[in-house]
């Protein structure tokens, strides 16, 4: 029999206090991590200021590699975001009870990932101060954006995705904020959480509307999450560059996105349950399920790789063949390519073993490898394709600068920083849902 979503069914009050504990208590380790990630975030700010003041030239980009780290990081982050929405929205529609205890963590992850992702398109512009020209507004020059380009699509997609994720997250949060308000140890906290709770009283009618709205948001978010990475993939697919110009990109990218996303969920929840003693709430069952999902996505990605290569060969097009069958496995970035393959294709096969899926340490390791692999995948897609396209005369390789690297490191820190703040000030586990779940399980037991 599968292990249950909850190992214990504590009383409502204990449960609330257990889940609210991080909000009221201070912890040294938290402060330490906060300081570390804070420092990293300062690095990000510095690199950003540097980029804006000296110019995009401070990045390693060149012609032909007009896009590189900036876009790689963008795609990587937005991809990570996807798992959050998937877990909370998609699994909600599929009525997977086990999502309850981890969906808010996943959603928070989405929010912060999207935030990071949104930084890069702005940063990588030659003249970021004119970024608003991508918005259709009645300008005195009467010139408009050009909507055949995938970039305005991107802009709309990310805007929508970010907003919807935020709404979804907040709506789900309201009842718990109310709990926090009512359990607040001090008046100050009571007022703050009170304001954000919007005066939630939990009447049957409110619950009903809440449920419907939440469901509808989930219904909207699910196709949205598919569309977003499909659109991101079109930044590449609509071009005619060998290695980009491919019809499999949308599903391929969505799968890849979820793949890295699940890996990130694993990497976040495992330390989380450990630090806050939540093994009873986030159980092996959860790890097991996410592990399976990751494995499934791994195979989707492998399929995409195979098809990509096959079509390149089957097309008989010399440029496609060179890019995918020679450029990647043997070109200047061959090493990265093979590392990527071992991370994305070989490593996840361990997840066939239940022992690996349920052992936090091993699972974390595999997830980490996948994470690296997926970043490299974006590097390969973007740089190896650009650096060697049609005319051999313009071939040139790419090397990142310290600014590129600082930006990557910086956004990772910012991500963790935001996540820490989230753990400290927001109920990270959806209290009402867990209660609901625990009562159902207890009821089941009663009937059993």
């Amino acid at each position: 029999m599968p292990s249950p979503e909850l190992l214990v069914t504590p009383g409502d009050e204990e449960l609330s206090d257990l889940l609210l504990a991080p909000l009221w208590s201070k912890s040294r380790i938290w402060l330490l991590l906060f300081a570390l990630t804070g420092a990293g975030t300062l690095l990000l700010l510095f690199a950003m200021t540097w980029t804006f003041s000296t110019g995009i030239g401070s990045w390693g980009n060149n012609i032909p590699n007009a896009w590189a780290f900036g876009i790689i990081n963008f795609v990587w982050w937005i991809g990570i975001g996807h798992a959050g929405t998937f877990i909370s929205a998609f699994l909600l529609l599929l009525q997977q009870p086990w999502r309850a205890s981890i969906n808010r963590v996943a959603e928070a992850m989405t929010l912060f990932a999207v935030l990071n992702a949104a930084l890069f398109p702005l940063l990588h512009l030659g003249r970021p101060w004119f970024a608003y020209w991508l918005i259709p507004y009645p300008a005195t020059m009467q010139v408009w954006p050009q909507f055949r380009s995938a970039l305005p699509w991107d802009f709309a997609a990310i805007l929508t995705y970010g907003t919807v994720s935020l709404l979804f997250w907040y709506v789900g949060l309201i009842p718990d904020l109310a709990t926090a308000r009512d359990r607040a140890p001090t008046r100050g906290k009571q007022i703050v959480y009170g304001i954000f709770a919007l005066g939630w009283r939990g009447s049957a009618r409110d619950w009903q509307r809440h449920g419907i709205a939440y469901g509808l948001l989930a219904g909207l978010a699910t196709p949205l999450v598919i569309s977003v990475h499909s659109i991101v993939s079109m930044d590449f697919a609509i071009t005619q560059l060998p290695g980009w110009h491919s019809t499999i990109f949308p599903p391929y990218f969505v799968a890849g996105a979820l793949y890295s996303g699940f890996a990130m969920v694993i990497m976040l929840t495992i330390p989380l349950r450990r630090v806050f003693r939540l093994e009873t709430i986030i159980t092996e069952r959860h790890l097991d399920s996410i592990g399976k999902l990751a494995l499934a996505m791994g195979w989707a990605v492998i399929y995409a790789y195979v098809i990509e290569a096959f079509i390149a060969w089957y097309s008989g097009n010399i440029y496609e063949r060179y890019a995918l069958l020679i450029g990647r496995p043997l070109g200047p970035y061959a090493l990265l390519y093979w590392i990527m393959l071992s991370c994305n294709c070989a490593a996840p096969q361990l997840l066939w073993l239940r022992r690996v899926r349920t052992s936090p340490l091993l699972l974390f390791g595999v997830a980490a490898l996948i994470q690296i692999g997926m970043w490299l995948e974006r590097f390969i897609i973007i740089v190896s394709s650009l650096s060697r396209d049609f005319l051999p005369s313009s071939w040139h390789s790419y090397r990142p600068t310290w600014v590129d690297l600082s930006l990557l490191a910086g956004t990772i820190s910012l991500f963790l920083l935001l996540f820490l703040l989230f753990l400290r000030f927001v109920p990270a586990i959806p209290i009402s849902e867990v209660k609901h779940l625990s009562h159902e399980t207890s009821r089941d037991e009663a009937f059993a």
Partner: protein
Amino acid sequence: MPAPFPKWADSLFRVLLAVGLITVAAVPLFLMAWVRTPQITGQFDPVRQPVEFDHRHHVDDDGIDCLYCHEQAERTPYAGIPPTERCLNCHSQIWRNSPLLEPVWQSYFSNAPIPWVRVHQLPDFVFFNHAIHVNKGVGCESCHGRVDQMARVYQQMPLTMGWCLECHRNPERFLRPREAMTVMGWQPPEPQEQLGRELMQQYGVQRLTNCTTCHR
């Protein structure tokens, strides 16, 4: 612990919320309106010149034609600012001792240009050619306004790209016969649209909205 909020907090909160939402919506609208104001376009701001030259007087009272001083307008990209000698064609005869002419004489004798201040200033990436506009039936007034009514010349038109496009898209609404080129306050004898279409035929005027028409 008491109830989280007193009764009045409710209404206060809602008001604040409303105000917040409205500002968020209003800011961009305000900006869009603001960039259309003279403050940004630089309209209606009489410019002080090194020489107190009064167009109102010279054009209206003396009836001097624009092309007498800006004689290149028909032939070259630039209408041309008259050389000092041109002022003296008349003023070596009349008002020669007027203190207002002091800088002119100075320039003439020291052979140093009079540093006139530019009034109609387009960005550096815009290339405007007077000759072609003048020859295709765009009157001075159409862009420079009623110079004959300006003591100190100021920019009367917004000179925004949108403004240029109005005419580049529909020249017929603005064209006038070459003879009336320098006339101030000209009124079309027949309905403008109709006259404009005729002139477009006659002068071979095109609707040019290519970027490189102006940006090169």
